[in-house]
């Protein structure tokens, strides 16, 4: 069974009396352990696709099967539970809570999965050390550099041992050197066997993935495999 299975998925929004079709018949299958990039210009529907894959939303049409569960019409509480257990997000703007220190930011997902306090803290520190933040545990995000913030975000995404990690323009707010470091971390995660999905408009970032899906106007325009060089097949 695939980790992710989308069948003829469409998502429509209604703004006033205008109907916007952000996704229009997308078929997508992601297997465990894949390193996928979703690329496309802004307004192409790649964010909408990521929201669906990240269980932040449900499709208007089609079928959505994630982690062996049919989530096409799932209720928000079910989606929240799936997000909590199976998914880690890394955002462009880090999305850390400025009032909490590094450990508390990292343990945030564990708060909602009913893990006892000592265990929470132990796991948060463990993950923080694995991303090289062992000496920054008591700092607040405002006292950290952009690269460090993104590492906190990655640690937070990892702390619940999710099956899939999403990076939404994870290098967008970073300079090229730290961006490179962050991308290397994603690569490393994938090498360790995690499924990684990057969403970006930058072909260079997408280039580190093993499979790239290009979205235009709500449809998958093409799919290619950077390691095996140019586009191999049309969807």
């Amino acid at each position, binding site marked *: 069974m695939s980790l992710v299975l989308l069948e003829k998925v469409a998502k429509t929004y209604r703004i006033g009396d205008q109907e916007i079709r952000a996704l229009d018949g997308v078929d997508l299958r992601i297997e465990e352990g894949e390193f996928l990039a979703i690329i496309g210009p802004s307004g192409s529907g790649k964010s909408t696709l990521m*929201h669906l894959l*990240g269980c*932040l*939303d449900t499709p208007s049409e089609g079928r959505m099967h994630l982690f062996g569960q049919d989530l096409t019409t799932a209720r*928000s*509480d079910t989606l*929240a*539970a799936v*997000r*909590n*257990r199976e998914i880690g*997000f890394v*955002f462009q703007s880090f*999305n*850390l*809570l400025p*009032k909490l220190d590094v450990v508390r930011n990292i343990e*945030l*997902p564990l*708060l*909602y*999965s*009913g893990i006892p*306090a000592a265990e929470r803290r132990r796991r948060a520190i463990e993950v923080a050390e694995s991303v090289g933040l062992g000496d920054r545990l008591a700092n607040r995000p405002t006292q950290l550099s952009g690269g460090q913030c993104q590492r906190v975000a990655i640690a*937070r995404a990892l702390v*619940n041992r999710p099956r899939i990690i999403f990076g939404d323009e994870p290098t967008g707010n970073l300079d090229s050197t730290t961006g490179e470091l962050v991308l290397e971390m994603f690569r490393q995660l994938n090498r360790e066997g995690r499924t990684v999905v990057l969403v970006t408009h930058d072909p260079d970032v997408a280039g580190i993935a093993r499979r790239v899906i290009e979205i235009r106007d709500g449809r998958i325009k093409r799919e290619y495999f950077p390691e095996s060089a140019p586009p191999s097949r049309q969807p």
Partner: protein
Amino acid sequence: MNLWITLETGLREILAHKFRSILSMLGIVLGVSSLIATMGLTNGIEHGTRVFMEQIGGLELVSIIQKEVSADRMDFSALSPGRTIRDAEALRVSAPLVGYISPEMGFGAFIAAGPISDRKAILGVWPDHFVVARHDLNVGRFLTQLDVDNATHAMVIGDDIVQKFWPALTPAQVLGRTITINQVPFRVVGVCKRYEREQEKRMQEILKSRNKAQPPKSATLRWDPFRRKNESIIIPLTTLFYEFKSGQLPDDSMASTHIDTLNLRIENLAYYRQALDQIRSTLNGTHRGVDDFDLQTRDEWFERMETSISATRLSGGLIAIISLVVGGIGITNIMLASISERVREIGIRLAVGARGRDIFLQILVESVSVAFIGGLIGIVAGYGLIQLLIVIAPSENIPFMSVESVIISVAFAVLAGIISGIYPALRASKLDPISALRYE
């Protein structure tokens, strides 16, 4: 997410915005403190009233009063001897539910002791009088049945009489001294305690602490419900009759002479109605069926007092509740503002797996914490307010803070917190994670 973390998160949020939190607490603080203060005031009034009720004999006291015979029964009215000592004796025999029976006779007389003399009211009584009138002895003894049976010249006096006739002596030194009533000598056998209102007691304490002997004039000029009690001059009923009343009427005997007052004390309030029935039927016999007496009870009067106390309580409580409601609206307002400031935070929490109800609980716990802390501050403020009231507006009924008032106030504050938190919490929990995350 368990409640403890939610609480911790809420308290963190409150601490992070101290000024805003204090502002949102203010309404609750005012509400709770005014609730505490009004409850303190009514507590004081209630306590004062109860003490007063106790002092004047309580609910157990029943007075037999004279009543005009209705015009159509006028012919029979001569059949009744009226209220006499026979009534008291009959009640003692045939109304067992009546615990104490106090027939009284009084007259004004010329009192003298040594160089000092004055006109005073004299009361002739049975020993039961001391129980019925709630007298407390300071020194010596009360009158006994022996005094009444032998018509002795013994006398019990109030504290004011001691101060009037023997200003230099203590009550204990007055025992055994002689005082004359219309030239008839009597010996003081007992002196009653000084009866004081709460206010005077406190005044005395304050004066004592300031080492001043003289009470301020305004206090002495005030109406004092215990003045008459403190001026008591009490002698046996028989002595009063034989020395001062006999020989005035043709048919002249102790038993047939009219008494002025007939007060009864009912032993057990559980049998109040039955006791009244016993009294009525006994007196119907002694009065030969003539309806020339009435039972004056305190229950209606006390009921009126209770009603007015609860009215005070209600109106004070209402004002306090209104300010609590206003305080609650304040919390709602500030919580709503704080939520729109924290949309992004809520979005992040939703993204990492918080459910709608986690967010709901978080906001609700936060508003309840604000209200609860506000309530605690309000209790302190209310206590201060009560102390202030005692100083700036001294009254007979000292307000005080009761445990119930604290519990009720905190309960209302928490209730206000819950009610005012529900709407903001509901709104926060309904946020869509995607738009919340995009929110700038």
